[in-house]
């Protein structure tokens, strides 16, 4: 009995498969299993929206000295469900002159893209939709679908605000994809594999401790990719109303919303998988059923950090944001990639390699911070700003 609970989820899967085997032929069992796993994983963005919107409104409410939702159910936990029902029964408006097929296709594409990410995210040992040998490239490739869907939405709406949002998407999402790819490449380099399961297995020490540069770059690029404050120029409600989805209403708007929170959760889950040790934790080898628990806890912590940043930082200007991506993050992640490559070829024990990696990373952070500080000082002098208030 205890042995069953120790690896509960995997054993449950085995029992389920055995039960199916008792009355179905072998290929049908595989198909049924794929369908069940697929339906569970595809619901992840929806589950994320129903829980994380409530969490976000509570967290940001606390940061802004408010209470947040507290009317619908205890502590307002049914607020998200009430919103979902409202979206389902709202009238759908397609503006005059919109490019109808593209306009209708964009929400479907963005929701599908958000769901597709979950296929390769490992929740625990042996708990992954598909353990692809190109897992991390799959993540990067599927993550780019969002860009296409957002441009489609902005272009098809026949609205100038939406179009400005789409313009900004091109610059922002493309620029931040480069440091993201480079930091993920450093992970693949240390792990020696692109399979997400393999990356987690390889993390005797969380990679965030070996390569803080890659982790920070991924974290910043990730929050830019999902378009959240301080990188929310694509939707910037105070400048361009809501950017690319201003003309959407009803459930079509709902799919954009679900994709945003699904992507937020997915980005945090990927950061956990690649840099924070995924489902590894104390006793996770003896009791594999603890793995998903550790995974969810770490992911929620990353989500909380992103919400904290959203609640406290002002929005960047587009030139500052693009400059940061190309002039700071790209050189820093390239330097990190090369440094890790050099260290891995040194004939020294693994512990020394780890210390050297961390040391080099701290040096990169120090140089980047010094140069940023100097640039800020130059900018303040050039614009006659008070250095005390404009430092950083």
């Amino acid at each position, binding site marked *: 009995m205890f042995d069953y609970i120790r690896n509960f989820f995997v054993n449950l899967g085995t029992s389920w498969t055995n039960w199916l085997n008792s009355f179905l032929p072998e290929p049908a069992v*595989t198909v049924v299993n*794929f*369908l069940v*796993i*697929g339906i569970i994983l*595809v619901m992840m963005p929806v589950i994320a929206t129903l829980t994380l919107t409530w969490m976000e409104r509570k967290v940001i409410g606390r940061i802004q000295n408010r209470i947040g939702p507290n009317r619908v159910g205890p502590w307002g936990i049914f607020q998200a469900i009430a919103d979902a029902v409202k*979206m*389902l*029964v709202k*009238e*759908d*408006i397609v503006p*005059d*002159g919109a490019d109808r097929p593209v306009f*209708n296709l964009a*929400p*479907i594409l963005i929701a*599908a893209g958000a*769901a*597709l990410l979950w*296929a390769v995210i490992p929740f625990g040992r042996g708990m992954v939709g*598909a353990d692809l*040998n190109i897992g*991390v*490239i799959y993540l*990067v490739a599927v993550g780019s679908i969002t860009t296409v869907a957002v441009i489609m939405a902005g272009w098809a*709406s*026949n*609205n100038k605000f939406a*179009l400005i949002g789409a*313009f900004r998407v*091109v*610059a922002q999402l*493309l*620029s931040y*994809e*480069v440091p993201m*790819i480079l930091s993920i490449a450093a992970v*693949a380099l240390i792990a*020696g*594999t*692109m399979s997400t399961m393999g990356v987690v297995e390889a993390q005797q020490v969380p990679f965030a401790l070996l390569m803080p540069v890659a982790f920070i770059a991924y974290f910043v690029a990730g929050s830019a990719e999902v378009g959240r404050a301080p990188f929310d120029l694509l939707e910037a409600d105070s400048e361009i*109303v809501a950017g690319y989805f*201003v*003309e959407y209403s*009803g459930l*079509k708007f*709902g*799919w954009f919303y679900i994709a945003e929170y699904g992507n937020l959760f997915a980005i945090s889950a990927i950061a956990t998988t690649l840099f924070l040790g995924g489902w590894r934790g104390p006793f996770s080898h003896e009791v594999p059923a603890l793995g998903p628990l550790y995974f969810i806890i770490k992911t929620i912590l990353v989500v909380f950090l992103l919400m904290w940043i959203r609640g406290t930082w002002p929005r960047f200007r587009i030139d500052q944001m*693009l400059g940061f991506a*190309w002039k700071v993050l*790209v*050189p820093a992640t*390239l330097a990190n*990639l*090369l440094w890790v*490559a*050099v260290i*891995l*070829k040194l004939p020294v024990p693994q512990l020394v390699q780890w210390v050297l990696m961390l040391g080099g990373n701290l040096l990169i952070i120090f140089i980047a911070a010094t140069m940023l500080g100097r640039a800020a000082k130059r900018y303040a002098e050039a614009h006659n700003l008070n250095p005390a208030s404009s430092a950083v």
Partner: protein
Amino acid sequence: MLSQYAFIAIFAVIAFALPVIGLVMAWFLRPKKPNPAKNATYECGMETIGDTWVQFKAQYYLYALVFVVFDVEAIFVFPWAVAYNKLGLYALVEMVLFVFILLGGLLYAWQKKALEWH
């Protein structure tokens, strides 16, 4: 491994089906009462002026060009990273050369002020 890709194929079908099912469900539930004022483009209550579908600013193309260079590089870096432990010292030398050529390109774009916002 082939069955893993079969899963991705099935999963992709489900992932595209879910939003479609949701929209069809909403189609049955929602009211349908369009009128000209409701269908007007929403630009802060003003009548829209001029053509919406204007040309992209040239600046965006510059970013897209630099991006393409680095994105193609990614296709090269990932296989290199996975095979790195099995390769000799030449893998390191070759990647250092490659990255420095890339960096040269980035510095050139930087110097030409392609990364500044005009």
